């Protein structure tokens, strides 16, 4: 835990890496949204839940580190790069 993600230098490799990471985190977050017991455990003790996921192979160390970082915007960046682009929702005002 507390590890910094190791990123490759090659652009294509980097894109594949980010998409794969986004996929793993997306699957975990979707499960978190659906499973009340898992959500409860996660709220109580994020480290233990993530540790079990890493040990089970569903998440990598760098995924857990990202989910334990101080700033959620890094998670958002990874998720956005590895997914369909989101357009900002802005009301039409004039």
């Amino acid at each position, binding site marked *: 835990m507390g590890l910094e993600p190791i990123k490759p230098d090659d652009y294509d490799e980097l894109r594949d890496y980010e998409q794969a990471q986004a996929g793993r985190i997306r699957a975990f977050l979707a499960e*978190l949204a659906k499973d009340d017991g898992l959500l409860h455990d996660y709220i109580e003790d994020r480290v233990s839940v993530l540790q079990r996921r890493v040990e089970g192979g569903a998440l990598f160390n760098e995924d857990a580190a990202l989910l334990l970082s101080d700033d959620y915007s890094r998670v958002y960046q990874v998720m956005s790069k590895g997914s369909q682009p*989101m357009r900002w929702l802005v009301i*039409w005002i004039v």
Partner: protein
Amino acid sequence: MSSGSLTVVGTGIQLGTHLTREAAVLLENADVVLALVAEPGMQAALEELNPRTRSLHDLYELGESRGEAYEAMAEEIVRQVREGKTVVAAFYGHPGVFVAPSHAAIAKARAEGYEATMRPAVSAEDCLFADLGVDPSRFGCQSYEATDFLVHRRRIDPTAALVLWQIGTVGSTVAAETTQPTGLSVLVETLLEHYPPEHEVTVYEASPYPGFDPLVRRVGLGMLSAEHVTALSTLYVPPLEPAPLDLTMLDRLGLPRP
């Protein structure tokens, strides 16, 4: 009533924790779910709840006028209702707050004789009150979309709190993937007509993920610039001074003077 119905729900802001049980049941049992959410994990979660979930983002072309995009979304939602389906449209946050196509779709469906309702959800403003410890009843609270605030010259009461939404896209009228606060300097200049430059304001973003704190950046109003802002930022301006008591009104109401 014609067959086919529309229910509009909100996902709340935070993935997994804000979705109401009512919304979850409606989503699970819909013939089709049309979703417009601001976080990819949220889209995945909706697809887990109901595999017949489709994103409305495809109808939101970059650079296109938002008015056209919203009309296209409302039409797509109602098109599914016309086919006799039980349609649930899911929007990020509260579906009725700062979401034009949800209201448009409901009005359109009702005008065509279909049952159409909206369910409440957790909005970004609800998160702001909780995270910043602000009670809108204490000082009063003014709430405007940032560009709307500028172009309509909304009046400010500096004795009440002021919340300005979408400062990350202030001055922009097209769909975008990135922050475009082209009018931020104009917004700051306008606010400086009412508040001193050292008045501390808060740039706020609710966390979309459980376990993370919100993003809270405090800065003097005169120093507020694009570096403090992201596409999802909201500006909270606290009251500058207490509102004066109207003693005559206290007397008229029979309330004791302090």
